[in-house]
């Protein structure tokens, strides 16, 4: 290693495998998460490409119906529980959150390592399910199918999800305590970077919601193993109760996935517009508002599940409310960009992708929150397209943008800028080509989760599959050049973007304890001065 500045950093002080597997350093744990989520992303993507190939033709001819069911189920389980939920908090949150607040580590470093192992154990169990019989209930595990009729490995899969849930809980707990108790002197709440606010809000959801998922999934496994009949209508049980419990977690989980990326967005926009973020306190508060309101809307998943219409009205109204804090963020980002001199580097291109895709995803969500419209659109490709715009278009774009933004800090290397922009554009184009046709298909009534469909829908499905191919390439490119940059990239200076924030005041890669001395904070986040106002 020919690093300038300090000779030892968190990467090179010890090269042994043991020093990685037993590390309690939040930076190394972030990298362990990076390996984990990348692996599971590849697995989930592989499944998606298989069923997109199947859907290129109307007839079910590539895989059997059973296989198809298992493919989309495991795609959902893997992508949600093993990629989206841990991606930004596990990788970027672990790496930068403690540095951003001027701490030496998270509050409970050993717990942090434990949560990674818990995640990996849950992941291994899920992989075991994938190769030994699969799971065909859909990622939602709906009863009574999952508890009584499914012939696949429901109990083992439930165990995998149950275990991974604890990884999420422990991560959230760690970030909450870290943010409260380990801030450097002078780092007041109103000086926190918005990424920290977003991760904090996310952690609240993780802690409040995930335990309910754990007990729900455990009940499925217990019911299946013992016939105790908790959700079994035959003995008076209520399958809709399962849906309530499941969505009490799984709707807030959408915000677990998107909020961290929104935090990344705030960092990117401020940095590449050289501006103090417009309406800082509103953007910060909107993260908490999303986290809290997100708990009052789960019933919109049950509009057509014999849920009472009166509950439906309440949930519908509350679902519309979530649009407000989301819009507060979008408007404030736009206002920050307004008349600033934007530098179009790779992370900013990803950020713009996020803006466009999240906007479409969010607005189509309003269609679905509408009681009457949802009856037509429920369980169609419209829903599939909607949540992919949020989770892939939003969450994943934010994750990739953040990864590119902090990559020089994490690795001490610069990646090739041209390829970065190229990948961002490829992902954006491929994504829209994949999912825009699905809105149309859904509106025409194509139901989700079927492996064959009428001939008249083929053109749009072919478009979608073609887009998925471009999207796949778009994801492969960064994997290649980021890995390439590890060895061949130019050494990164401490602050390659000229950004504000404590993480840019320490060398790239940071020393073992982040800072030589505990920093003392004297200014707000994003103190960019007036550089951006030149055009006024």
């Amino acid at each position, binding site marked *: 290693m020919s690093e300038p500045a300090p000779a030892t950093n968190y990467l090179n002080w010890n090269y042994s495998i043991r020093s990685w597997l037993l590390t309690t350093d939040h930076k190394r744990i972030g990298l362990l998460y990076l390996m984990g989520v990348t692996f599971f992303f590849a697995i989930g993507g592989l499944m998606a490409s298989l069923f997109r190939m199947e859907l290129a033709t109307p007839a079910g001819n590539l895989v059997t119906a059973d296989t198809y069911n298992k493919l989309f189920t495991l795609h959902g389980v893997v992508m949600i529980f093993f990629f989206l939920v841990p991606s930004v908090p596990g990788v970027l949150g672990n790496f930068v959150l403690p540095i951003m607040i001027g701490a030496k580590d998270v509050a409970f470093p050993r717990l942090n390592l434990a949560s990674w192992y818990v995640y990996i154990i849950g992941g291994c169990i899920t992989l075991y399910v994938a190769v030994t019989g699969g799971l065909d209930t859909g990622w939602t595990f709906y009863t009574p199918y999952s508890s009584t009729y499914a012939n696949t490995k429901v109990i083992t899969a439930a165990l995998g999800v149950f275990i991974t849930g604890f990884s999420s809980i422990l991560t959230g707990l760690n970030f909450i305590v870290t943010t*409260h108790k380990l801030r450097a002197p002078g780092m007041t709440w109103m000086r926190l970077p918005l990424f920290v606010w977003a991760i904090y809000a996310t952690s609240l959801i993780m802690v*409040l919601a995930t335990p*309910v998922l754990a007990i729900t999934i455990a009940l499925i496994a217990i019911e299946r193993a013992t016939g105790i009949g908790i959700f079994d209508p035959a003995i008076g049980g*209520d399958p*809709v*109760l399962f849906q*309530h*419990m499941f969505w*009490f977690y799984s709707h807030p989980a959408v915000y677990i996935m998107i909020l961290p990326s929104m935090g990344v967005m705030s960092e990117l926009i401020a940095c590449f517009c050289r501006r103090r973020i417009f309406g800082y306190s509103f953007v910060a508060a909107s993260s908490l508002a999303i986290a809290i309101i997100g*708990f*009052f809307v*789960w*019933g919109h998943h*049950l509009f057509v599940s*014999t*849920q*009472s*219409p*009166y*509950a439906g009205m*309440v*949930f519908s109204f509350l679902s519309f409310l979530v649009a407000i804090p989301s819009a507060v963020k979008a408007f404030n980002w736009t206002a920050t960009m307004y008349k600033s001199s934007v530098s179009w580097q790779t992370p900013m291109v990803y950020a713009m992708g996020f803006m466009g895709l999240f906007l479409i995803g969010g607005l189509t969500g309003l269609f679905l929150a509408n009681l009457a419209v949802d009856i037509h659109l429920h369980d169609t490709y419209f829903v599939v397209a909607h949540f992919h715009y949020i989770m892939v278009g939003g969450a994943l774009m934010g994750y990739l943008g953040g990864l590119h933004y902090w990559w020089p800090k994490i690795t001490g290397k610069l990646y090739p800028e041209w390829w970065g922009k190229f990948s961002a554009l490829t992902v954006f184009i491929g994504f829209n080509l994949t999912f825009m046709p699905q809105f149309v298909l859904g509106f025409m009534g194509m139901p989700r989760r079927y492996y064959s469909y009428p001939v008249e829908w083929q053109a749009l499905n072919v478009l979608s599959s073609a887009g998925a191919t471009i999207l796949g390439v778009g994801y492969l490119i960064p994997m290649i050049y980021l890995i390439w940059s590890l060895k061949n990239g130019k050494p990164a200076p401490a602050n390659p973007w000229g950004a504000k924030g404590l993480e840019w005041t320490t060398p790239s890669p940071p020393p073992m304890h982040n800072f030589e001395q505990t920093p003392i904070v004297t200014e707000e986040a994003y103190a960019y001065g007036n550089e951006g106002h030149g055009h006024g």
Partner: protein
Amino acid sequence: MKHHIVPVRLYLGIFGALMVLTAITVTVSFYDLGFLNTFVAITIAVCKATLVILYFMHVRYSNKLIWVFAGAGFVWLVILIAFTLSDTMTRAWIPLPPPLPM
């Protein structure tokens, strides 16, 4: 480090109160109070839990943050139960349509 040390006498007092409340809730359960049955039982349980939280768990002597965290779980549990009941309790208000003629 400064810690508030709760005097032993107070612990014993709280313990006594918990015992009395337990006796009351058991005794009351043998009388039919109509719709108050559930109300009384839950109210007494909430009182007992509050005593344990405030004194045995030292929340009474803690900063506001601990107060918020100690309360948050219970508030969220109420959200979970109340909104689910908003479905299950009102489902019967609209009768199901009759089965389709075959």
